């Protein structure tokens, strides 16, 4: 039990951030109308590519072969996610925009 209460104390700030972010996320996203659900999903999907920061840190400090290879794999995949995600979303939103009457 001691472990558990210690966990909650040491990670207090992280837990605060998570819970408040969840509220923020729900607040921001629940106003998106259903016609924009696909771009929302794909835009959010692009943001999940934020893992690329981890990829940069890993490759940036890679020293063993293991770290080099897997790091580059992770970085490459994350970049696919980021670039592809934002470009696809942009393409979709462009179609919505030009139809303004």
């Amino acid at each position, binding site marked *: 039990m001691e472990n558990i209460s210690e966990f909650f104390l040491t990670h207090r700030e992280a837990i605060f951030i998570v819970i408040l972010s969840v509220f923020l996320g729900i607040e921001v996203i629940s106003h998106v109308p259903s*016609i924009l659900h696909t771009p929302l999903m794909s835009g959010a999907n692009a943001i999940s590519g*934020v893992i*690329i920061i981890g990829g940069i840190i890993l*490759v940036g400090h890679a020293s063993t072969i293991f770290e080099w290879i897997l790091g580059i794999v992770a970085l490459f995949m994350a970049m696919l996610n980021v670039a592809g995600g934002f470009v*696809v979303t942009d393409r979709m939103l462009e179609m919505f925009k030009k139809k303004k009457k």
Partner: protein
Amino acid sequence: MDTINTILPANVILEYSYLLSAILFVYGLKLQSHPDNARRGNQWAAAGMIIPMITTLLLHKNQTGAGIPLVNGVAVVITTIVGGIVGTIMARKIKMTAMPQMVSFFNATGGAASAVVALIEFNKNPDQAVLVGLLGIIIGSIAFSGSMIAYGKLDDKVGDIFSKSMTYVNLVFMLTIMGITLFVLLGGLSLETRTFLVYSLLTLSLIYGVSFVMPIGGADMPVVISLLNSLSGIAATMAGFIYKNEAMILGGILVGSAGTILTIQMCRAMNRSLLNVIIGSFGGGGMAHTSEAGTVKEISMSDAAILLSYSAKVVIVPGYGLAVAKAQHLCHDLEKLLEEKGAEVKYAIHPVAGRMPGHMNVLLAEADVPYGKLMEMDDINPELPNTDVVVIIGANDVVNPASEDDPSSPIYGMPIIKAREAKNIIVMKRGMGKGYAAIENLLFFNDKTRMLFGDAKGTLQNLVNEVKSL
């Protein structure tokens, strides 16, 4: 860097660039709540991604205080550029009709990246951040393999495999994964055992992702895609905890929230619980209504054209069949023709029509249909009783009155577009095959219904020609 350091220490710039990035993500998503601002929102979010990438590359230091060496920095830049080019080309080349696949694919790569990052970090520091590291590996792997299967299914490369036993297999997988995770967390294991268990978790999670998406069929895809999307966000959050990086934590949670909200909305639109989608399946069961439904009446192309031309109000109900036939442009042509003849034409969009949330909206937007014409189910339903003709193109279950009439039907209780309340109904369908739910649709036997059999593209083309020649 020395000049910068005298003004502001590099680590302050770095940390606050993450805050800036998090703010840009929130602001970007906020702008996406209206079609007019949405594109700008996406660009802000993209800026929120590029800024921390640059600052991390230039300013990040490891525990010993060493910056990123030149060789590693060059490797980062090259990998990023190659990844960026490949991703952009894929995203530019893809056809709008193949959008659900593309989104799933990018979701898979994001999940994989999270899992790999968490795995390398575990290898570096096996004693640090064990909980979040394990969760990152597990959730990232499930998001990866699950999204790849979803991609395969949407691209018609992978079929549905379903047997009742899958439910139990999945349950066993889930419990095993949770069991091993707890076991590792409790600690007291040697490093070798722990490493072995972590790799077992990785493997099990990859397999679980496959076996979890495998039995889920077409019409449930919007739910699964939203769910997988939210998983890849949560995986990124977990990895963010390893680095105590606010941009990653907040960005991941935003994605997680977006995915979760969409998942809930999709489930609600089908009147099913998430659990029901994951472990249950349509088809097979619930065959209560196989009794004689009556006869189906066809309509000739010219009669259909005349009926439509003399209507004052027409509502088009698109479904997955429209996407399959890639007939969205012809659909828009028909709409324009009828408007020229004085009719008011609108589209009725069911929340789960198609294979991902909002699928029909994107499809019709590609064909230049103004978004003001795309009506949500609850807004269009009250208008249907004074609609002259409802044209159903490749949709089935979302207009099935069994959801209101037949308590024994598997789709009973699902909100539908009440097409049968219109004065006339034209159904374009390839044949008398049943919808995804494999249940009889009494709407097709309704007295007001006339069928136009054939591929949606061919049928629409003929219909457009008929209307033109009138």
